[in-house]
């Protein structure tokens, strides 16, 4: 059967997806956010004297800590997802494996990120159970 499609129509969809700048800007904006949030998290742990159960719970329950922790987790997983995606796209060229890995990274980031967020909320709203 004759192909009536124009050369342009055949070429469409085979090249860049056209949303690279969104990824590029997202990576850098989340990097800026994590510059502050990451230092806050590491220094908070370093300066806090000891993290036994009660002290850790009390720390997370402070409103400004809970908010900043949630932002750190969200930005961290977003930045991680974008970074891992680039690594896979750079080194894995076999289309089936590449697609599978990209979906796994997306699913894993969502699952772990949401679970961590729910954990913070559970602690903040006092849902933790002893024992």
């Amino acid at each position, binding site marked *: 059967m004759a192909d009536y499609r124009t050369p342009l129509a055949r070429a469409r969809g085979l090249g860049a997806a056209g949303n690279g700048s969104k990824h590029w800007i997202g990576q850098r904006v989340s990097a800026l956010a994590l510059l502050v949030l990451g230092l806050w998290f590491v220094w908070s742990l*370093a300066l806090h004297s000891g*993290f036994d159960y009660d002290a850790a719970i009390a720390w997370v329950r402070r409103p400004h800590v809970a908010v900043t922790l949630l932002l750190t*987790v969200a930005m*961290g997983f977003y930045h991680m997802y974008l970074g891992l995606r680039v690594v896979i796209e750079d080194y894995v060229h*076999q289309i089936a494996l590449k697609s599978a890995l990209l979906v796994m990274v997306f699913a894993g980031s969502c699952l772990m990120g949401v*679970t961590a967020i729910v954990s913070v909320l559970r602690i903040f709203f006092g849902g933790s159970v002893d024992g």
Partner: protein
Amino acid sequence: MQERPLSPHIQIYKPQLTSALSIMHRMTGLLLSLGLMGMSLWLIALSTGEKPYALWLTIAGNILVRILLVVWTWSFYYHLCNGVRHLLWDSGHGLEISAVYRSGYLALGASVVLTGLTWLMLAAAG
């Protein structure tokens, strides 16, 4: 994908600070992905209760995990310092080769110093 000839690649070049720091940015990024999993597990354990949290503390107290925590701390600082280099380059600053080397040594040194300071604080806090 069709097999096509490749131009000479990294294996024929002398290792340089620039390329070494670049690949280290990726490797520390991968390590930090694992670190984020560790941080999430910490939050999950804490939200689940006292016993799971005690288990997490026991695991974190293991000498091998302690070493991993130090490696993660260094990875964090290195990725952060080198990330600042990238942000400066993206804004068009420090792209002269002498500046690239200077900021590279600075990032490397700063990551080691900051890791040391952080663990000194942790040791002091107990």
